[in-house]
């Protein structure tokens, strides 16, 4: 019998080529799992990167981001 509540896992996918590096998502994230990278994208803008874990799927970065498709938040579900 599985009694322990499963921890939900979320991920912040940043499309580097659609990010303009404004930094709004970085300051919006309550878990501090976003930061500004050092590489430049196709538009020659720096872009935000996700730490790889720790996202709680709150969507704060998504709504703070002015770019339509730079951020996608997904939940990783075990099937």
């Amino acid at each position, binding site marked *: 019998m599985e009694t322990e509540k499963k921890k939900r896992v979320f991920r912040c996918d940043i499309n580097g080529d*659609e990010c303009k590096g*404004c930094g709004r998502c970085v300051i919006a994230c309550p878990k501090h799992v976003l930061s500004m990278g050092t590489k430049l994208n196709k538009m020659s803008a720096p872009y935000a990167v996700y730490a790889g874990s720790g996202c709680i799927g709150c969507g704060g970065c998504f709504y703070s981001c*002015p*770019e*339509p498709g730079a951020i996608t*938040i997904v939940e990783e579900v075990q099937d």
Partner: protein
Amino acid sequence: MADVVKFAKPAGFFDTFVRRPGPIKKNMHYCPGCGHGILHKLIAEAMADFKIKDHTVLIAPVGCAVFAYYYFDCYGVSSPHGRAPAIATAISRTNPDDVVISYQGDGDLASIGFNHILQAANRGENMTVFFVNNAIYGMTGGQMAPTTLPGQVTQTSPWGRSVEETGYPIKVCEMISQFEAPVYVERCALSTVPNIMKARNAVRKAIQNSMNKKGFSLVEFLSGCPVNLKMNAEQMNAFLNEKMTKFFPLGVYKDVADERAPVHHPVPTFDREKVIETLYPQAFDHAVEDNFRYKSPVFQKECKVKISGFGGQGVLSLGHVMAVMGKLRNFNVSWLPSYGPEMRGGTANCSVVFSHKHVGSPQADYNCDLMICMNQPSVDKFLGQLSPKGVLVYDASTISNPPTGPEQTVYGIRASDIAAEMGNQKMANSVILGAVIQMMQECLMNEDEKDDLDRAVEAALNESFASKPELAA
């Protein structure tokens, strides 16, 4: 493992921005961190969630959001600066089932187009206004806006906005919420996440009001222009939350949508027959075919007529009758009364232009073909505008020896005296009309045309005087 998408590019946006010129087709044209982008996302999300893309019309302003139609997968119209509420009014009235969004900046809404937004709000048009207040003219490079804060440095207030010189920031929500008609007015800030989430609710509420035909909703968004204000993301949020909210407090200023019944504005007619019936009420008996053309050479070019006299002599009515005669004979006509202060007892005048082609300028102020003068000051003022080969018709009861040129044709009619003899001096304008008709028949027309002119005069008199309220002057 499977990925379930929680937040992604809303379907209210086109997937690829094919209308945007140049190689970048997935990003918008806004600067990094611009508040317009944040708001666009909220609108696109609401349009998709409410499934209204196919009957939403977004009016884009002049300002940085001028290219909004590159991005939103709905209908759109681009507006002249500040005039979006007028266009939104027309669209909303003619398409009452559509969701009409007027998207405007602070320069656009609160400066050049301020009267438009006030009137639309006061009429309670069924529309949603999204008002982006970034305290600056963003698009033109950072000039002072009506919403610029006191002391704020801009390109046109390099020492900081001085309230002694340019007054205080204009508080749009506070003003609009004072009107009776608007149903929902709220101010939000596109800054930190909690404020953006409130803005998201406001966007949805305003759009739902439009969907429910509740009338006029306006949401103001304090919004970042980080490039012109030279701020990073953190400074921008702090400016919005701490500085701007001091002058522009956030919150709901009015919300009576639940108490209000859906609005009903008169719906215009699009039926061609009905429009013709309204514009040309009794013309059909005497009207001519669409391809009818007078053959007389005099009508081959545009004819400009100037009629002038003392206010009260019926100068405007005379011009109107002549214009209607032309209209009934398939001319393109214009009738341009001058409503200057001189109308109150000085020289009144109007211009009438007839043409088989499009009328260029409706103003007859040089090279007039026919000049009708009904008092001496009119001769003094306007005779110089008669073409060297033009025709002058004047009231010889009050005017003597007008200084005409050698090639001008001159008819002096004792119009006021004749009218007085007939019992009413006010009919001097009709006497002049009779004289003009006589002159045209004798000088310009063959027998068929004369008969037709008689019919046109009768019809024009009917149309001008039978059903119309009395014309001024």
